[in-house]
């Protein structure tokens, strides 16, 4: 029986993980992820979840335990934020290269220095090239749904998945959401299986020194070298988008929610201007554009990215072909260049005929408040502004809400 509740985003994630029949949880507490791991340890201690909770001394160890558990044939989960995610970084590359189907929640938070516990996306953006799939939730219901889908996706494509949700904005606020019935989730998610599960009867060395060239193994079968293994990771990560769409369709059939696995458009059909964002900001922007449409007669839509890696290149470019202007709002950047999402979006558009005027806004770093009125004013100005003559001007990110 499904179950309506009002709870925090962290608890929404924990309850989804409970439904996914996880065998091992290894996590180190860090704000704002802490209540998620506390909830899981409570559920396990109370016997409401049949899993092993491994209390580790660091995030590096948390990912190490998950890598070991997944290799041994156990469904493993961890969660972190900010500097904790960065402390795992080496192990993140390892989990992806080993094609381990792990799932991890990130309650997104700014990275020190200076120390900050508040929200932005720099933690996830800094790990975009680790070979993990990165999904972004906009609300609590999506945290639940994406976490359940993430396990099925990871296990079908053998690529680890991060489920991102905004620290505090989502992790600590309370919202209504529906929790699917345990039996239905069990049916949706087949039992865990890893291609190279450790087996004493069939001993294998996993991921030892792999030579630059392909080799004949002891059975005379050609085995790829490092570059071939990495090429396939990339190729199959691209193909994972198709599998995610199929999973989303199956999820929609089973639970009645879904239909927008890659991009979630809001009032984009007739839009002259499209605002692009990830996470809870995309929902906040819906209110802003409703206002702009009503008060200023500006045809604006919001396009939320539900997945950042693999990047939905063709889908995004196609969705923006009819727009005159595109405004990318993001809570992170590639220092010394531009917003990373903006740069990715620009490169996605390059091979296509229509090249809308682009704007990049950096906002909300380290929890800087994002006022709806400021968003509205910034967006209105950008819509009404004539095309700028200097390419340098057009391409420079604007920092919104600076207090200098």
């Amino acid at each position: 029986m499904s179950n309506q509740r009002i709870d925090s985003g962290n608890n929404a994630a924990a309850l989804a993980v409970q439904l996914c029949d996880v065998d091992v949880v290894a996590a180190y507490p860090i704000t704002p992820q802490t209540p998620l791991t506390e909830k899981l340890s409570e559920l396990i201690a109370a016997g409401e979840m049949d899993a092993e909770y491994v209390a580790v001394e660091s995030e590096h160890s948390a990912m190490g335990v998950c890598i070991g558990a997944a290799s041994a044939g156990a469904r493993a989960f961890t969660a972190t934020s900010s500097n904790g995610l960065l402390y795992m970084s080496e192990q993140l590359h390892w989990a992806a290269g080993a094609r381990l189907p792990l799932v991890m929640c990130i309650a997104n938070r700014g990275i020190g220095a200076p120390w900050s516990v508040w929200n932005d996306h720099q933690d996830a953006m800094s790990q975009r090239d680790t070979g993990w799939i990165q999904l972004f939730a906009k609300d609590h219901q999506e945290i639940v749904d994406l976490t359940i889908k993430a396990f099925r996706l990871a296990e079908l494509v053998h690529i680890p998945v991060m489920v991102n949700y905004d620290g505090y904005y989502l992790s600590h606020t309370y919202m209504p959401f529906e929790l699917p019935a345990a039996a239905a989730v069990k049916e949706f998610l087949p039992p865990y299986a890893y291609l190279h599960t450790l087996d004493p009867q069939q001993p294998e060395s996993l991921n030892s020194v792999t030579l630059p060239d392909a080799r004949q193994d002891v059975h005379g079968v050609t085995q790829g070298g490092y570059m071939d293994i990495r090429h396939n990771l990339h190729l199959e990560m691209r193909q994972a988008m198709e599998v995610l769409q199929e999973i989303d369709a199956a999820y929609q059939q089973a639970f009645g929610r879904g239909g927008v696995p890659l991009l979630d458009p809001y009032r984009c059909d007739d839009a002259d201007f499209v605002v692009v964002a990830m996470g809870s900001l995309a929902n906040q922007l819906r209110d802003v554009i409703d206002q702009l449409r009503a008060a200023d007669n500006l045809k604006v839509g919001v396009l939320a990215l539900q997945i950042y890696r693999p990047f939905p290149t063709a889908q995004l470019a196609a969705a923006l072909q009819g727009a005159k202007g595109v405004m990318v709002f993001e809570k992170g950047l590639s220092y010394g260049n531009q917003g990373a999402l903006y740069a990715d979006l620009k490169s996605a558009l390059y091979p296509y005929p229509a090249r809308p005027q682009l704007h990049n806004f950096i906002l909300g770093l380290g929890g800087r408040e994002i006022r709806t009125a400021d968003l509205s004013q910034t967006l209105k100005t950008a819509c009404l502004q004539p095309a700028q003559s200097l390419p340098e001007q057009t391409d420079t990110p604007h920092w919104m809400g600076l207090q200098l």
Partner: protein
Amino acid sequence: MPDSRFKILTSASTAGPGDAGRTGSWRVERPVIDYSRCTPAKLGKHACHLCWLYCPDRTISKDIEPQIDLEYCKGCGICAEECPTRAIRMVAEEEFAKGDGHE
């Protein structure tokens, strides 16, 4: 299990000679067995075979006179270290190049 459309390529290997390529060329020192001191050779029956057991690349045969596959032996010296009768000594490859290695 993974979706059948996906060829999950990973680095996994089973024990055996050649899983890392023809590693014989890595060798700096070559193990040479003195069968007059080697336990199975001396007894004329299967015994000891610790060199066979310890070789990480499985290049030593489990014969009465154990043979070393020099295509794959990378000269790590574990067999010489483990041999309880000191029947295996490590000889510099350059000795063989000069023709002084007696093999």
